[in-house]
């Protein structure tokens, strides 16, 4: 009896989405962009640490920082566009 009750409960739990299909969820574009923003933040932080510790030459720091900032600018344009929807 316990096994059957457990089986029934779990089956209902697993099958529920099939009987209550939500409207096709739009891909979480904003969430994906935010995730990418977090990655960029971490990369910028790493760059600063590397510069401070001397692990990065000044020219390489400038190049990498410029690349990251360019990517950030593009990212935020996309985020702003998402936010204005």
């Amino acid at each position, binding site marked *: 009896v316990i096994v059957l009750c457990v089986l029934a409960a*779990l089956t209902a739990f697993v*099958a529920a989405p099939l009987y209550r299909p*939500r409207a096709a969820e739009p891909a979480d574009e904003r969430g994906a962009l935010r995730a990418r923003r977090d990655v960029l933040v*971490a*990369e910028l932080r*790493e760059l600063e640490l590397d510069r401070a510790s001397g*692990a990065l030459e000044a020219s390489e720091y400038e190049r990498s920082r410029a690349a990251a900032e360019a990517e950030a600018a593009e990212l935020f344009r996309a985020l702003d566009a998402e936010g204005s929807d």
Partner: protein
Amino acid sequence: MPGSSFVLIALGFAAYAAVAAIGSQRRRNQVWVVVRPELLHSARRALLASAAALGLAAVALWYALFTRDFSNAYVAAHVSSATQPWYTFAAFWAGMDGSMLLWSLVLGVYAAAFASVRRPLAEPFVPWAVPVLGGALVFFCAMTAGPANPFRTLDLAPADGRGLNPLLQSPAMVIHPPMLYTGFVGLTVPFAVAVSALVTRRTGADWVRVVRRWTLIPWLALGTGLVLGGAWAYTELGWGGYWGWDPVENAALMPWLAATAFLHSAVIQERRGMLKVWNVFLVTAAADLAIFGTFLTRSGLLSSVHTFTESPLGRWFFVFLAAQTLLGLSLLAWRLPDLRSENALDGAVSRESGFLVNNLVFVGAAIAILWGTLLPLATDALGRGRLQLGPPFFNRVMSPIGALLLVLAAVGPLLPWRRGTWRALARRMARPASIAALAGAAMLATTRHGAFAGIVTLGVLVAGVSASEIASAVRARTHSTGESRARAFAGTLARNPRRYGGYLVHLGIAIMVVGFAGSLFRAQADVVLEPGERYRFAGYSILYRDLRHHAAPDKDVRLAVLDVFSGGRRVAELHPQQNLHANFDQPQSEIAIRTTPARDLYVILTGTKDGSKRAAFRLYSNPLVFWVWAGAVVAVAGGLVALVARPRAGARPQGAPAGQAREVAASAP
């Protein structure tokens, strides 16, 4: 029994999860698209249901163990009415069948966690990772429901059980196997994500970012499990050491080495878009080596201190191992054109080249251990008998590899990205190298042992670089924020847990290595003493006072009482004992250890004579073992920092303009 039914239910849901996740997708214009999100949602829930059913199966087994249901064959074989509660709890994984249920349960929990955590970066990998996790779960549930069923009943229940193997009656055994399994099993998740990345052609850095944390968990658990296994061997096996290059120890070390290599090379793919093929290979190798280790453990192909887990399951594991390897390597070959590096190596003196060499050395270490472990099988197959390679072989091969890894751990953090100069590197190395050289010279003068002085030099070098990198970050933070050093230290770790957690791990390993080097001064003596007799050993005077006998419910105990004197002062009373357990023929020794930072005094009662109090002892002096455990604590703490702490966004400076782009720029320190 309901336990078996719960395992079958878990198997059914795992199979459904795999099929439903695949069925939720269609290929359009060479891209996999989720066309039935409700089916994928249901598949994710099925993995949760599978884990829940396995949890209930585990509860059923624990219930049978604690209620002493001796009609259950597994219970009758692994506990008796006298087994203590903690060991009754641990009896769950004392045998093959319970271990398989534990494996399935841990895999179920991992799969459920992966399926239920919704992170935007990970979502694209879920639809194809679920079938891989579900497929693996089907295999392990099938093993648990079939050849390794812990719920088999006996026709005639015995009045009492056999009891737990005395060697497993150790506090470390309560936690060591679950830790190891958490490590072995967890490596399936990065493999599943890698498969998904290859199938969906998302072979950029995102899959590596997703699996970093999913790799850190098993890496940390496996490392902790290895240390706990060493502690168990040290305190229970009675040979005076903590690592014997036993095949099963080796089998657990190999996936840890592969995972360690991946955690380093993942940084290169994230930062420079390089080593893509290598990273897929490492993730596959780590998952394969985890299964291979279990295959070795279960097959009984090699003799080991873990012979209590032998079973005919080996061939099934071999089939699973072959299937997993084939899947990983064939996908790798198929997607090779998508895995081209985005950048080339710019210079020999660079962080990238340091990581690359570090990876090659880690993998070289794993291959050397694999070779040494499998050689007896190879020579046996060639009809030349079993050529056993013992600790001398492994120590000889692994010493230079370990030394090279220490050098890389010291140099790596000081290397610049892309390209640097030898001169700049030498300038940054000068201070820690000078301190390390001084420490080494002092050790050489004190001990007159070149190898020991060399190891201490390398250990101090790694510790010096790691500590100075952390210290300089703390100093900079103290200056800029005015925080106390303790707060600045915590803030530094929180600011960049991955980097500073990693340095703490390096520091811990350096301390451990110095502890390992203590074994070069290990001393041993075998003595037979009468009560009242003294024996001088390793600077101690040991007085044998008495031999006491008493009977516990499950064993006869002979306990020697020893007083330990140092410098004329009594510093410890030790009680080595020898137990004769009911239902087990071999006597088992309980070792007595006096631990100090300088050395362990390790005493085994090896023999007694009926009707006499004359007793035989084996004594070991094990220098610096304390530092092995202390270093492990630091390394685990570093791993936890890297795993648990989440980087904090920096405060926006006052007056900084609003806007997310500027916020990002301002978040850098």
